[in-house]
């Protein structure tokens, strides 16, 4: 478990950071995901499934955080994560634009774009993490990229 964490925690935190825009919150999600894996470790038939399982848990955790925030403050849904990311990390304006644009995408498209084009996961890996088919990953990432491109071309 510790070895798995040491090997993959940075990548998983990076994934959650792109979803939430904030490293401490991202680390909490990853910690929770590993805690869940820890509790189910004995019932895990194939240790090789551990990484897809925990990656999927991280995505679920991010969705929970986003949903919770959205419920509590619907008016600021678009800004979710961006402000805190900017508070903790000084990003250049061009990168802040990308972060904001990612957060304007529908959740499925955002996840598909991040998994496929930021983290360079295969379609199969992304599909396993998102619990959807490879075809859906393909269409979601393709639509997400197109939408992202449109958003980034918009005048502020």
């Amino acid at each position, binding site marked *: 478990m510790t070895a798995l964490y040491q090997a993959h925690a*940075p990548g998983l935190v*990076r994934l959650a*950071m792109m979803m939430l825009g904030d490293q401490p919150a991202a680390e909490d999600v990853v*910690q929770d995901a590993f805690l869940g894996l820890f509790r189910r470790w004995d019932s895990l038939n194939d240790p090789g499934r551990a990484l897809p399982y925990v990656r999927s848990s991280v995505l679920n955790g991010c969705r929970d955080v986003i949903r919770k925030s959205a419920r509590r403050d619907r008016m600021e849904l678009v800004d979710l994560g961006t*402000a805190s990311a900017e508070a903790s990390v000084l*990003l250049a304006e061009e990168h802040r634009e990308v972060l904001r644009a990612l957060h304007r995408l529908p959740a499925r498209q955002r996840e598909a774009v991040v998994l496929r084009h930021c983290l360079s996961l295969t379609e199969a890996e992304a599909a396993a993490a998102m619990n959807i088919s490879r075809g859906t990953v393909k269409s979601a990432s393709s639509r997400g990229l197109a939408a992202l*491109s449109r958003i980034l071309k918009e005048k502020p």
Partner: protein
Amino acid sequence: MTIEDRLHDFTRVIDDAMRPVRPLDLPPTPEPARPARRRPHGRRWPGLLVPLGAAVAVAAVAATLVVVRGLPHVAARPPGIAAISPVPAGSGPATGPEALPEFFVALSHPDAGMPGPGGGVSTTPPPDPVVVGETRTGRVLATVNPPAGATFAGLTGAADDRTFVLDAMPRQDNPVAVGPRTWYLLRVSPGTATPAQLVKLSIPSIGSRPAIEGIALSPDGTKLAVLFQPDAGSPAAGRFTLAVYAVADGALAHRWTGTDPYHGTYDYGSAAPPDDNRTLSWTADGHRLAFAYRSSKSPGSSLSLRMVDLTRPGNGLFADSTVILTIAVSATTGKSAISCETLGITSDGRTAVCGANMPRFPRTGIVLDAYTRPSPWTGCARPTDLNYPGIAEVSLASRKLRVIYQVRPQCMGNGQSTTLWASPSGQAVLSYIGYTNDPSMRPHTEVILASHGSITRLAWPGAATLLYNAAF
């Protein structure tokens, strides 16, 4: 540049901006597998969570101070611990300025801003009431609720152990959000009908999104020093500023401004509450104020302790302050003699107290120079050469290092040492020490009182958790 290129570039930047990930925090043994069910709301950091109610209940029956060294009960010491200095009996004077403050005021949320085992900060909902308690026993004397719709974000105390200043900000769900501050005076009168009284102050809110890097009430309780960056994290982020306000009427008494948004402070980047009350320290006469500083333009910058003199003119944070101590980081190797989580001066102005990570065998008595620096995270492995947390002091006259206490775990991530309080002479220091020492990476935390050669541990349950966010 294609959209894919922009995403790759963005990913690289996020990679560069990421701080080291904190170690895994798991229960010591796996629980039996159970059918999947919904995770309890808001569960985080199970190893660190100590509900306030439990802490209060246990604290009522807790022992007071347990002598760590000199006791025959070796088991009272976590494995791997060794203190450096000789330890005579006793725990220092019980009264007078060198005595441990009788009372503390603390943010009550069990792990508000608590460091994780790797030195990261856990993010939990902002703290709610503050607790007034007895330092030696943990006995809670009063709780003070924040104003409606607000949450307390920080606190700092005067030398009389009765006067505190608290700041509050609008309650938000995002634990790392920041907001305008409202300031309050808290007077503690144990044993009276009104053990704690909260009064709103006229000190300004310091903008809508300030990063409060440090707060410190002067020893006489008349002046509040605030180190901050306006509009932190936004393109309009302002220059770092050190301001001193009169507690009585909120009037700005002094203001020193930095040179640009990147020439900031030791804690640059951690804008989220709790507001740090350990980066600023006053001399007893209230004339001089020291602040720890490290340029955020380079992660390998040397750590400095600078001092401003309130009796002299000038408003430049750097031009009108004096470097009184530098913990040098080698430009070529990135190494330093010790690494200070907190760095402040004693109120006699003669000693710097460092919540330190040190080499296993620190070169006591040396003049500080380049040596080594900690690796970000070693996991459960033999500690690197600068992963032994403890308490160190540096004479501001001779620059010589003195190690007061040090933990020597066998297996750990980064150590953590934070100075909670120091007596006027520095002969007594209260410190929070955290480290990991077993394969589960479970954090060990303790509050150590090093007083006149004696090392003791505050033994009431929850001491480390509560006092980490306390003022004395």
